[in-house]
């Protein structure tokens, strides 16, 4: 098998604050192949955004730092790459789009100015050619009257249109990897679907791998090939979208899936996982999900679970239950008597 496009090995990223070191990402391993759409799911504060910023080398200076692990991209370890090299990679080979399309564009300049600037950062072409390229990109992301839009200011566009502009900007240099940090969270539901469809289309047309960071399992189901579920700075489950939705192996994943509102369901209350995400660094020993888990037993509090193979191709879970035989979490006997 050929080497993956991106391979993250044992990544540990910490924030250094007045209260000491806070491990936001604590030993994360995963990889993304060329042309793959990889979803990273988790609650706020689980380390999914920090993982992406670590890859981009955009952690806040002096506060966040990669303290361990390697990030291999096209045979190059980005953790050790110079800032100069990272500037060449950013936007050119790895691009990123953000959650807030309303504020992701500079309000003082026209859409054209900003696209031309982005294009000319990495390709040495003349302004006129860059402008033609910019118009082409706008058409590509499904914006009508692209020529006219080049002379418009961000405040004249809607949120969905701006997100399309951001995608155009990110795709301008045809990066091999596009990191999308909650690209649809701030958008209307109807627009969300359009943006996702657009991203999927770009993925198919150009073979750009997408790392889709989201807390919305609906987004994952829509466009991802593979999913990583993160919890408290660790990967708790990894597998194909089908495997994770049909047979979730980790109680946290199962809980997330159960909390999706079902239009057919007649449940009065929506399921929610009890408790809160533990503060980074506060769990000293045992499974980090133990306090909120309904299947918890003694071993969970004493030993750190590893990522165990579930028997299915590429499906791994960080849960002792997987060591026992059987199907998904939901079919297991509930060990309520052992709860503390």
């Amino acid at each position, binding site marked *: 098998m050929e080497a993956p496009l991106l391979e993250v090995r044992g990544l540990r990223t910490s924030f250094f604050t007045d209260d000491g070191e806070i491990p936001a990402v604590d030993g994360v391993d995963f990889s993304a192949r060329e042309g793959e759409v990889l979803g990273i799911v988790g609650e706020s504060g689980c380390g999914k955004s920090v993982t992406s910023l670590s890859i981009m080398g*955009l952690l806040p200076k002096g506060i966040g730092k990669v303290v361990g692990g390697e990030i291999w991209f096209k045979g190059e370890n980005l953790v050790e790459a110079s800032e100069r090299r990272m500037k060449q*990679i950013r*936007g050119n080979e790895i691009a990123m789009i*953000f959650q807030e399309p309303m*504020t992701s564009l500079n309000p003082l300049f026209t859409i054209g100015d900003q696209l031309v600037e982005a294009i000319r950062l990495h390709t040495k072409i003349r302004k006129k050619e860059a402008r033609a390229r910019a118009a082409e990109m706008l058409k590509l992301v499904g914006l009508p009257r692209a020529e006219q839009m080049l002379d418009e*200011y961000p405040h004249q566009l809607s949120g969905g249109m701006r997100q399309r502009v951001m995608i155009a900007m*990110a795709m301008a240099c045809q990066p091999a990897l596009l990191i999308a940090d909650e690209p649809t969270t701030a958008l209307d539901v109807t627009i969300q679907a359009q943006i996702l469809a657009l991203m999927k289309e770009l993925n198919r047309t150009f073979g750009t791998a997408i790392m889709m960071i989201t807390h919305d399992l609906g987004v994952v189901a829509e466009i991802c090939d593979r999913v990583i579920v993160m919890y408290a700075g660790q990967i708790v489950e990894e597998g194909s979208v089908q495997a994770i939705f049909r047979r979730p192996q980790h109680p946290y994943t199962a809980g997330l899936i159960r909390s999706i509102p079902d239009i057919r369901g007649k449940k009065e209350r929506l399921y929610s996982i009890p408790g809160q995400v533990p503060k980074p660094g506060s769990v000293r020993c045992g499974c980090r999900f133990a306090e909120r888990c309904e299947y918890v037993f003694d071993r969970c509090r004493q030993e750190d679970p590893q990522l165990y193979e579930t028997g299915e191709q590429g499906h791994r879970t960080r849960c002792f239950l997987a060591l026992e035989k059987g199907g998904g979490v939901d079919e297991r006997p509930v060990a309520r008597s052992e709860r503390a």
Partner: protein
Amino acid sequence: MAELARTPATPPTAIEEERTVSLWGEAWQRFRKNKIALVGTGIVLFFIMIAILAPWLAPYDYKEQQLAERLQPPSSEHWFGTDDFGRDIFSRVIYGARISLWVGFFSVLGSIVVGSLLGIIAGYYGRWIDGVISRLFDIMLAFPSILLAIGIVAVLGPSLQNALIAIAVINVPNFGRLIRSRVLSIKQEEYIMAAKAIGMSDWRILFHHILPNSLAPIIVQGTLAIATAIIEAAALGFLGLGAQPPNPEWGKMLSDAKDFLTQAPWTMIFPGLAIMLTVLGFNLMGDGLRDALDPRMKS
């Protein structure tokens, strides 16, 4: 019902025909509607015209002494009267506009350039660089500004040019802190992160994104600072630390006139009025610019 059948993909023409207006264009629209600001701008333009056209407007040479006509009251010959050397005050006030505006513009320009640079560096890089620059500003602001200016002129020697430098220096912390705070807030904006994510360099981000977005408060503060700079220049002139005779600096004219206040009040009234009017003009214009450029600040 035909209207209802229209899909959202083809918006009504009204939207299509909306004019493309930049933020600056919008600000200009707001400024134009502000009558008081326009009056202020009128006054400022009036004095600028006077300064430019001084040699053609002034009936006499500003240093021409006619000792026979000392301390003459205003007349058809000498509109604003004459001073104790028999010089025409009207001509001196006209030439004085050149000096005051020159000092006002260039001292503020100097403060803006130096202050912006320091403020940007402090705000963008933060940490110890910010600590050093901010403490420097704090120290400078701990002195009453005119005292600091007097100190600087005392070191450099009294002259108009040194007064200008002193005024520029004392205003640096005001601009520095203003820019620093703007940079700190703009730095958090997502478009800065987005710019970094496409591989833009720090300097490009500073000068292409952060500085243009800080321009509005700089312009407002700059206009208002010209007003104070003119007063400070007059104060230094009054103390004999600014323009030297026979230069017709308005503050210097006031101080020369103070001995004849009772016999010849016109020697003091006209330069005083000139100072008041220019400062008023810049203040009104500055207030108008603030309302136009930052509508949220308007009470």
